[in-house]
């Protein structure tokens, strides 16, 4: 797709929405207002935004344990997302899934996943369904550098290639799996080197540059839509917060300098500079977007807090689909 001014503005808005949602979630977690684990996407916004801007509502994505950003980028509703993180009845999963299982099937977001690599075969299955139906839709797999070491990823990537499915593999290479650096867990620097082993084309893109991600993703999606099979996009990125929670400085596994270095390339700052330079959106315009999104977040928090907890009887529902009573 062409990088029009509308696209630039759209990319900016998607990133700002992710950033504010994640910052708010982090704050709430610090205040112990969110139960369970929390894996924040701050710093990696350009990847989800750039990829999802290249998709239609009919296209599907499968996500990871770090899934809020993907859902927001795909059009997720703040209220239902925040309510899910707070385990409320009004949440996307009625409070049963939480951060690690958040999803919106209507938007084609097939779910975050608590199992590293667990979502990869599922997205490939959705891709098979798209080919089967000939509906022209594409499915995208988001996965991390660490996830590229697990068997399910390998099997599913090869399956997509063998069956020539309309799937795009997007590796979010943030250089770490939890607290272990990439060079401890693989002997390669670029995860995309694995694409050749599946017979897929692959590219490396600057994961802090939303426009670059958008262009690479658009190309891969176009190829898949055209029936030319799966491809692989590796986005070099970095998470600004800890593996889970928000703590950042004084970590043993990565230096404050490394973090500071990456922070100078904040994907939102980079795009806002470009928008200003191109005269598409000036500082005030950007600030207006932030303000609007911030207000929506506050509203979502209020919505979530006012929402009721699930009724205890909900514990027993939806284990099975009851014939007649639909999904």
């Amino acid at each position, binding site marked *: 797709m062409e990088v029009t001014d509308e696209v630039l503005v759209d990319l900016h808005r998607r990133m700002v929405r992710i950033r504010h949602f994640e910052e708010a979630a982090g704050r709430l977690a610090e205040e112990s207002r969110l139960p369970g684990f929390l894996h924040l996407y701050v710093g990696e916004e350009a990847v989800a935004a750039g990829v999802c801007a290249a998709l239609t509502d009919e296209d*599907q994505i*499968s996500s990871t344990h770090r899934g809020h950003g993907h859902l927001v980028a795909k059009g997720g509703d703040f209220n239902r997302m925040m309510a899910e993180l707070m385990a409320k009845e009004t*949440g*996307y*999963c*009625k*409070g*049963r*899934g939480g951060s690690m*299982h958040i*999803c919106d*099937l209507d938007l084609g977001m*097939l*779910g975050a*996943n*608590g*199992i590293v690599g*667990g979502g*990869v*075969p*599922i*997205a*490939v*299955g*959705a*891709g*098979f*369904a*798209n*080919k*089967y*139906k000939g509906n022209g839709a594409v*499915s995208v797999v988001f996965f991390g550098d660490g996830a590229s070491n697990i*068997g*399910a990823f390998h*099997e*599913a990537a*090869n*399956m997509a290639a*063998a*069956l020539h499915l309309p799937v795009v593999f997007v590796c979010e290479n943030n250089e770490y799996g939890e607290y272990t650096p990439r060079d401890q867990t693989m002997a390669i620097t670029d995860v995309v080197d694995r694409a050749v082993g599946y017979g897929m084309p692959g590219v490396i893109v600057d994961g802090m540059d939303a426009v670059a991600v958008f262009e690479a993703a658009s190309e891969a999606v176009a190829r898949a839509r055209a029936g030319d099979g799966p491809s692989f996009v590796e986005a070099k990125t970095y998470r600004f917060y800890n593996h889970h929670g928000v703590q950042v400085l004084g970590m043993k596994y990565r230096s404050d300098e490394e973090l500071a270095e990456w922070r100078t390339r904040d994907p939102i700052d980079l795009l806002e500079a470009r928008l200003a330079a191109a005269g598409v959106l000036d500082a005030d315009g950007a600030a207006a977007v932030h303000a609007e999104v911030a207000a929506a977040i506050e509203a979502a928090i209020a919505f979530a807090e006012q929402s009721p907890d699930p009724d205890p009887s909900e514990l027993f*529902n*939806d*284990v*099975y*689909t009851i*014939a007649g009573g*639909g*999904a």
Partner: protein
Amino acid sequence: MAATETETRTLAYGAAFNEALRQMMREDESIFVAGEDVGAAGGVFGAFVGLQDEFGPMRSVDTPISEQAIVGLGIGAAVAGLRPVVDLMFMDFILVAMDQIANQAAKLKYMFGGKATLPLTITTSGGAGLSAAAQHSQSLEAMLCHVPGLKVVMPGTPYDAKGLMVACLRDDNPTVFVKNKRLLGKKGPVPEELYEVPIGVANVVRPGDAVTVVSYGRMVDESLKAADRLAGEGVECEVIDLRTVQPLDIDTVVASARRTNRIVVVHEAVRFGGLGAEIAAQVQEEAFDYLDAPVGRVAAPFTPVPFSPVLEAEYVPNAGRIATGIRQTLGLAEPPG
């Protein structure tokens, strides 16, 4: 059923399974099968023969050797609106795909607040008796039955193989259909028309009053043989074929046990932690005051399945050992010789 039997044609267990798939695939375009060698080769046990010729390679898919991705293919396609059938060649291989089966397929709907629907059927072949050794002979249903979200069927007759497969294909939940390798060639009456054997309903295959014998899969035939022997000793066994192991038709089992006051559970799986344990636990709870003896269990010993035919014959329960187990529960001595 008894009435129709006489009129209906006989078909082998494997062929009955195949016919269910073919007839349903004709009715429903959203059904496809995928797995290793299921397409052009028709499956290593011939269970999928002819499907690719009739429905083409898109609906009869040969996959790489990738059990996790095979199950995942089914999950994703099901969530996207198709009704996939994915095959895992041997039941032992469910352990290779256990994350996709138990952490993904079984839980998605619940974790998603009810949103996802997974009309997914996983087919596989279990059971010992072919000298296939420890990694190609297991009966692992107890592991699957312990996972909320799954349904598991294990037919013992060609009639049920067809009827239960139809039921699985029509069910909107992840179901696991376990063929027994040694029953594939077994012949029996199978109506030509499409029919359904409901999931979760057991079948009293032999009425009796002295003791209830509960089994499923291939052990039903062995239990019936044992019942014949005991009939010769003046003991009438009531034999129940569970057909479905999850959900369990415990009402039928308990009702029978309350009448006979004695019950023995028989399965090929190892005794410790097998389905017999759950059945015993539920029966002693539901029929405590009716039982004249502890719930008996006849099952495989706590060892891997051995290769040697001599050892495997010792390993797998058979009519003789079942009869012995029944006599123990009845407090009867072994017959002379």
